[in-house]
């Protein structure tokens, strides 16, 4: 089976995995949304506040301008909320710089929300839907700011050099004598790019948004690479009886 985010699970009655695979093929988001709406009638499509937001943001003139200003306040509140949650990890960053980060995140989130208004289908309250844009913008900025002065080692074999880091995954694996097995699987199973991404994200805990910036790619593309690498490694280690196999490979002869 090809490496893919969509993992086949064929043996009935293996739900919900089987159902999930079918949904993936047929158009995941719309299908599960419809199912959720059937199951939970208390949805935002009948929620007055969401209808108000859509109405005023699609209006003309002062009404729309006022609504946009209110939406920006909402985005700024969410961005500052995210800054507050991460402040402890950013104690070395000045407060006014964090305020700037929150404002930039709110500005970009506002633009994203306005450009995607037609994508809002009412599966949640409008405010919940809009919040996620501000939290994403703020979170990405704050992760990158936290790593701004830190080196990201990208050489595929560099992880060996980090074996004595306190509390690292390396130390955990080394103590359980799995380090050698994992390294052998990395060397034999992964491409150079997969090794680079896996080592950075899974072993050295580099935030995916930091790595995506350094490599000029996206979170989604990197996670796909990580996912494929993990599947290969699990298959390799499972073939040697060291771990459980991937869920869609259980029962296959080795």
């Amino acid at each position, binding site marked *: 089976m090809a490496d893919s985010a969509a993992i086949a699970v064929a043996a009935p009655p293996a739900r919900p995995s089987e159902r999930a695979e079918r949904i993936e093929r047929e158009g995941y988001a719309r299908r599960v949304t419809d199912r*959720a709406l059937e*199951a939970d009638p208390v949805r935002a499509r009948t929620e007055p506040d969401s209808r108000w937001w859509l109405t005023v943001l699609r209006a003309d003139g002062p009404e729309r301008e006022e609504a946009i200003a209110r939406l920006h306040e909402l985005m700024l509140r969410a961005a500052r*909320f995210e800054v507050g949650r991460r402040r402890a990890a950013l104690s070395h960053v000045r407060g006014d710089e964090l305020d700037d980060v929150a404002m930039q995140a709110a500005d970009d989130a506002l633009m994203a929300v306005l450009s995607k208004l037609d994508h809002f289908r009412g599966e949640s309250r409008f405010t919940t839907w809009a*919040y996620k844009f501000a939290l994403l913008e703020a*979170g990405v900025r704050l992760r990158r700011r936290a790593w701004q002065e830190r080196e990201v080692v990208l050489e595929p074999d560099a992880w060996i050099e980090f074996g004595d880091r306190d509390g690292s995954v390396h130390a955990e694996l080394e103590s*359980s004598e799995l380090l050698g097995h994992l390294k052998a699987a990395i060397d034999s199973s992964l491409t150079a790019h997969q090794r680079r991404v896996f080592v950075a994200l899974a072993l050295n805990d580099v935030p995916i948004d930091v790595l995506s910036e350094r490599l000029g790619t996206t979170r*989604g593309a990197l996670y796909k690479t990580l996912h494929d690498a993990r599947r290969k490694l699990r298959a390799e280690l499972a073939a040697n*009886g060291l771990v459980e196999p991937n869920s869609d490979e259980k029962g296959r002869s080795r």
Partner: protein
Amino acid sequence: MSVSDHRHDEGLERVLGPTGFEITCEQCFELLDQYVELELAGADADAHLPGLRTHLDGCPACREDHESLRALVIADQG
């Protein structure tokens, strides 16, 4: 060494990630607001949106986004 020796090795499990079906980062972002509201309404969000929880287990960035959105919505409700 055998499976029984290592199936509970948390470090290795974290490194290798979840084994089941999971959606992508893009799909996770698209559905995150719905998932959070289903959770907070006491509905079975995982049954309605299969693969999202598994993705959160494997993707620290999306997991943080989920935790933040959930916390913000709860703060709004309070």
